[in-house]
């Protein structure tokens, strides 16, 4: 029991209360501790009442036995330490008067006397409080402020008390520049300051404009000069009341907006720290400990929902057994709507899903059921079965690892389920086998790697040859026919290039649209030329070198009869000397061969265009790097050598890809020799 409270009460009411208390509470062990104290208090009080005192004790006439009786009876509740709810210390916010009605201080209405108010103020103001005042003089050691009103929780009427407080210069924050901080403040400014220090005996207040001087729940409020709008509502309303004598507390309250707010009760209860739904009561029967948890509405509803859902599940199971799956599903869903996560409904629905084949949904339902009830026998059993079945499905789909995971889980769940264990073992064996197989394959693949590469290379060469053929054909025909060629050969392209990788084909096609234009241009321009020349005048921006090369290349080609050319691809490093030899002639060779390629109708325009593209690229490279040998040049030369060889082979038979592949190494050597001759010719 709260000792101080009891003492206060007893000293207020007198002996009657004490005797009643003793009578009513004599069984209360807590009271016995305090009883002695109370007797002492009373004696003190009686002693004091003979002298003049400031405390207002209850007059004898006012003694209300009923009240005292009530206090005595309910003392164990009223003075219990748990009776007082602890108020949360929220961050204080300036009230806007919208949530509830902010009223001026009662002191003002009550017309409490000057001295009393002053006394009360000095009794109650504390360090960390916030005050608002007007500057009345600025000295070099600080500011003198006449207090106007309190702020931040404390609500008192102090304006006419004319309390002066000092804000010394050390408590005034500097404004940044090196000016005197006090110069910022003028006489008559309204400032909001925190109470730094109080001397209650001498009634002196020291203020500060630093936020650190404020109590923690206030420290977000800005201190310093404020305007009239920032004055607290209780003060402004108080001013209004002071001026208008018709304004009573009642009237002001009734007129205020905050009173009409329907939520003000909840808001204020929260402000006072009392729960809205668990308000205290002094009736014995309504004490909170008398209420059982299962009597509450939500608890009963939950139980009812569960039983209702179970009924639905039962009918659903009946439907299921009779084969009416749709009805059964409806019943289960209904049950789950009534009671979400109902274990029985989930298990039943899961079984239905499993029967119908939606194994993943079934697993989901079982998992959910087991979450709420991990010991549900049926759920475990069904889940195991479903997992095994699903595992089987996955096995067939070759998702062995996932299947393994599922089997393991099934085994963990229910170790008596032999099927799961068996399936797991089988699967593990299978996995091991497949792993071994994979290893073998991997080893084989590495061996094959080279062969695979070489076959790819061969393919490329074939393609290059084809291109060369096509180009040759184009050169020989007229411009119009070449354009038709390009279009027709595009069509023919598809079967011939079927061997090629699709990417390359697409790559070429894209280029073809771009390149074919150039190609046509070139074709048209050289229409005058003889077929033997079959060389296009190079565009202005190409390097001259390859023009010559082309000429020489045609000669070479006429000698060597290379046919089509495969595509040019980047090849692994070749000996630099060969490249250099080939260098200036390479392009010419390219073009030369393409002229002949035209003979072969089934060469692709894309290859031609790729040539043109590649030549453009080549030319660009040449122009960028001058006439120096570049890597790409070299590589292209290499390709061209190969293509040369290929084309020669292709003369015999294009279909013999295999033969081409075999002949490649020899072709290379031949090409090298031919190119060497070529060079000699050129130099000559």
């Amino acid at each position, binding site marked *: 029991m709260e000792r101080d409270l009891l003492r206060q009460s007893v000293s207020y009411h007198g002996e009657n209360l004490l005797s009643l208390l003793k009578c009513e509470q004599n069984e209360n062990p807590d009271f016995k501790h305090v009883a002695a104290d109370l007797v002492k208090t009373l004696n003190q009080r009686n002693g004091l009442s003979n002298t003049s005192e400031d405390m207002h004790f209850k007059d004898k006439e006012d003694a209300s036995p009923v*009240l005292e009786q009530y206090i005595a009876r309910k003392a164990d509740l*009223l003075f219990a330490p748990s009776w007082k709810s602890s108020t949360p210390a929220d961050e204080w916010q300036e009230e806007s008067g919208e949530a*509830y009605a902010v009223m001026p201080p009662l002191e003002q209405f009550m017309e409490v006397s000057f001295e009393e108010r002053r006394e009360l103020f000095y009794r109650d103001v504390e360090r960390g409080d916030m005050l608002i005042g007007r500057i009345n003089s600025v000295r070099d050691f600080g500011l003198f402020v006449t207090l106007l009103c309190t702020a931040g929780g404390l609500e008192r009427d102090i304006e006419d008390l004319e309390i002066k407080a000092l804000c010394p210069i050390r408590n005034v924050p500097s404004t940044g520049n090196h000016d005197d901080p006090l110069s910022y403040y003028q006489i008559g400014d309204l400032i909001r300051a925190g109470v730094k220090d109080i001397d209650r005996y001498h009634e002196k207040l020291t203020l500060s404009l630093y936020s650190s001087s404020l109590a923690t729940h206030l420290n977000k409020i800005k201190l310093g000069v404020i305007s009239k709008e920032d004055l607290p509502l209780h003060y402004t309303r108080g001013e209004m009341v002071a001026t208008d004598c018709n304004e009573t507390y009642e009237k002001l309250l009734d007129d205020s907006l905050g009173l009409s707010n329907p939520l003000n*009760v909840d808001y204020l209860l929260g402000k006072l720290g009392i729960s809205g739904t668990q308000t205290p009561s002094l009736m014995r029967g309504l004490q909170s400990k008398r209420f059982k948890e299962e009597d509450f509405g939500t608890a009963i509803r939950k139980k009812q929902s569960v039983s209702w859902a179970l009924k639905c599940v039962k009918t659903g199971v009946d439907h299921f057994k009779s084969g009416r799956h749709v009805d059964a599903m409806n019943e289960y869903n209904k049950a789950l709507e009534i009671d979400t996560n109902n274990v029985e409904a989930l298990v039943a629905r899961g079984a239905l899903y499993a029967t119908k084949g939606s194994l993943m949904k079934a697993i989901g339902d079982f998992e959910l059921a087991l979450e709420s009830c991990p010991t549900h026998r049926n759920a475990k059993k069904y889940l195991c079965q479903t997992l095994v079945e699903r595992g089987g499905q996955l096995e067939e789909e070759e998702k062995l690892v996932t299947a393994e995971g599922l089997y393991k889980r099934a085994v963990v769940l229910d170790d008596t389920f032999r099927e799961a264990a068996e399936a797991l073992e089988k699967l593990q064996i299978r996995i091991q086998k497949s792993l071994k197989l994979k290893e073998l394959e991997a080893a084989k693949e590495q061996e094959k790697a080279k062969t695979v590469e070489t076959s790819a290379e061969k393919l490329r060469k074939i393609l290059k040859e084809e291109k060369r053929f096509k180009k040759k054909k184009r050169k020989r025909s007229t411009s119009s026919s070449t354009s038709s060629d390009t279009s027709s050969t595009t069509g023919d392209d598809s079967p011939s290039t079927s061997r090629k990788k699709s990417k390359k084909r697409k790559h070429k096609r894209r280029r073809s649209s771009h390149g074919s234009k150039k190609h046509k241009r070139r074709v048209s321009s050289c229409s005058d030329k003889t077929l033997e020349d079959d060389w296009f005048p190079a565009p202005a921006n190409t390097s001259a070198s390859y023009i010559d090369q082309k000429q020489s290349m045609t000669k070479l080609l006429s000698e060597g009869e290379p046919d089509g050319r495969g595509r040019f691809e980047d090849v692994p490093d070749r000996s630099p000397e060969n490249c250099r030899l080939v260098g200036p002639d390479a392009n010419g060779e390219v073009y030369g061969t393409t002229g002949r390629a035209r003979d072969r109708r089934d060469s692709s325009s894309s290859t031609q265009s790729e040539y043109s593209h590649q030549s453009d690229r080549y030319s660009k490279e040449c122009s960028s790097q001058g006439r120096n040998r570049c890597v790409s040049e070299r590589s292209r030369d290499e390709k061209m050598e190969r293509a040369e060889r290929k084309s020669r082979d292709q003369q015999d038979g294009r279909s013999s890809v295999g033969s081409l592949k075999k002949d490649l190494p020899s072709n290379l050597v031949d090409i090298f020799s031919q190119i060497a001759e070529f060079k000699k010719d050129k130099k000559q």
Partner: protein
Amino acid sequence: MSTQASTSVAVNEARGRRSTEDVENPKIHFRVCRFIIETGVKLGMRSVPMATACVLYHRFFQSASLQVYEPYLVAMSAIYLAGKVEEQHLRTRDIINVCHRYFHPDSEALELDGKFWELRDSIVQCELLILRQLNFQVSFEHPHRYLLHYLLSVRSLLNRHAWSRTPIAETALAVLKDSYHGSVCVRHKPQHLALTSLYLALQTYGVQLPRGEREWWQVVCAEITKAQIETIMSELLQLYDMEAKCT
């Protein structure tokens, strides 16, 4: 209807005797109001809807007779209607569940069968009856918001530490809540009730407020006299005595 009950009381008084009804009625009302408040707590009702439910009940029986209408049914409907009026909607299913358990403790939850729906129907019918009996005036002013504002004003008069150790707010609210057991809630103005509860709470702890030209309660309610406060206070305190007799 409204004159029937009051004339019977008047006649009895004239005859100088109190019929059993007059003695019993307050007890019945007390019990039913206790039932309302308990149910309200179990349903998680806030203070104001609970107050509305009690006021609806009291006002209904000011003009209706207990012989004709089953008070517990009226109480259940009053709860349902109060939830609607004060925007804390309660479902009839919950009300029926809690009430059933009140009368049959530790029983199983009711089956949602025909009997349940019949009960529900009767609540809804009774709701309409209450509305008609009260001429559809079901919006009341309650003392709660006045009390809370008065509490804040009084708080500003007190030293903060004194306030924090004295459970004035709790006691005042408890007294107010308990006042709904009787018809005192419909016979006095809400401001007066609020004031009296606060007065009672301050008296309980012997809290001394500063004195000015006027007492704080004179400021808060201009026309009220000390005698009135005392009257209401005694009525409130009588209710606590009644608890012993009724339960």
